[in-house]
């Protein structure tokens, strides 16, 4: 969870940075930029949410007899999701920040910009999904 939080935090910080820049330069576009920033941040939050999900699973699942292999698999699942959530968090936050800047420059294009941002974020989410899938695999399928 700790590693996973790094990525989302950096990414969302960049989005907030861009939104503030837009507010400074074009105050009339600030509402649109705020809405774009919120949407982009909510999506950039999701790798952190995956990490939280895996952390809760690891903390609360009751495991029966643990051998060394299973202990190593659980540790690996945690590290896998943590590091896997770093990259997409930063990347999606970057996309959100640039989308805010684009909305600041051309508020009339807002739906198209938001749509492009969402599609790009959804594709870069793929690697976070891979990590989530492998982490769940490691928790539930490795025995002994």
């Amino acid at each position: 969870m700790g590693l996973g939080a790094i990525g989302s935090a950096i990414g969302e910080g960049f989005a907030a940075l861009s939104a503030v820049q837009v507010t400074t330069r074009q105050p009339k576009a600030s509402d649109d930029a705020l809405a774009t920033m919120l949407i982009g941040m909510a999506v950039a939050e999701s790798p952190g949410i995956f990490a939280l999900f895996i952390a809760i699973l690891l903390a609360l699942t009751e495991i029966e007899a643990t051998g060394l292999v299973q202990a190593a698999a659980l540790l690996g699942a945690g590290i896998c999701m943590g590091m896997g959530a770093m990259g997409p968090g930063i990347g999606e936050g970057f996309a959100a920040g640039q989308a805010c800047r684009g909305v600041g420059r051309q508020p009339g294009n807002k739906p198209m910009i938001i749509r492009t941002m969402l599609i790009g974020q959804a594709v870069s989410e793929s690697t976070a999904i891979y990590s989530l899938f492998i982490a769940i695999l490691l928790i539930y399928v490795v025995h002994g």
Partner: protein
Amino acid sequence: MSKKSKIIYLVGFICLLCIWTGMMIHIEPQVKNVGEAPEKITNIFGLKHSFFSINISTILNSWLIIAILILIAYSVGRKLTKIPGKAQTITEFIISSFDHLCADTLGADIGRKYLPFVSTVFIFVLLSNWIGIVPVLGIEEPTRDLNTTLGLGLICAFVAHGSGIKVKGFKGYCKEYIEPGGIIGWCMLPLNIVGEFAKVGSHSIRLFGNILGGSVLILVLLELSRQLLPVYIVFQIFFGIFVGLVQAFVFAMLALAYISVKVA
């Protein structure tokens, strides 16, 4: 009130009462929910229980939300006046803002066709997220169950892919997976296919994780602060209302974006 509307309100009230009784019978104590979260999650993987087991609390809460939505729609839609009252103003505001959104994203004519679907998804998810704020025993958000969100995500995916096939024909729809022509397109094919699954997965798990994480967090904080009321109120305002609104909006916007990618 006319006789027919009185009967409908009475029926609605009896339905709510039945749902609430059902919840009381199948109550799962709130405090133990922290440890039981993995039980509900593993229900969908079919590992501990059979594939056909049901999360009673999720279903009953979903029925509760459906009943509430039907009652609200009935009572607001009965007398629509040109100069709207308060309730009509709020509902018109929600519907018209989604109308503008759909028209901007999909084009004016196609936007109207998908408006009912997208706004229904938004309203259902919004009410599901917000119903967890009510501190009545037995009422919890149905979206804290992965089954609900995955079901909604699959519905949105089917709508998107189905619309794509209908608008472009099956060959046109398949051609999109091999986007740049030639050898690079064929290399992109597995990536695009996995990307589709990743879209559905992330769409659902984002909503599920946010709502479940928020509610578990509030439970833990309440335990730690020994049932201090201001802590509960403050965190419910943030995690319950704000996160619920944002996540519902992002869910509906993403559904709209996926449809527009396939249809455009």
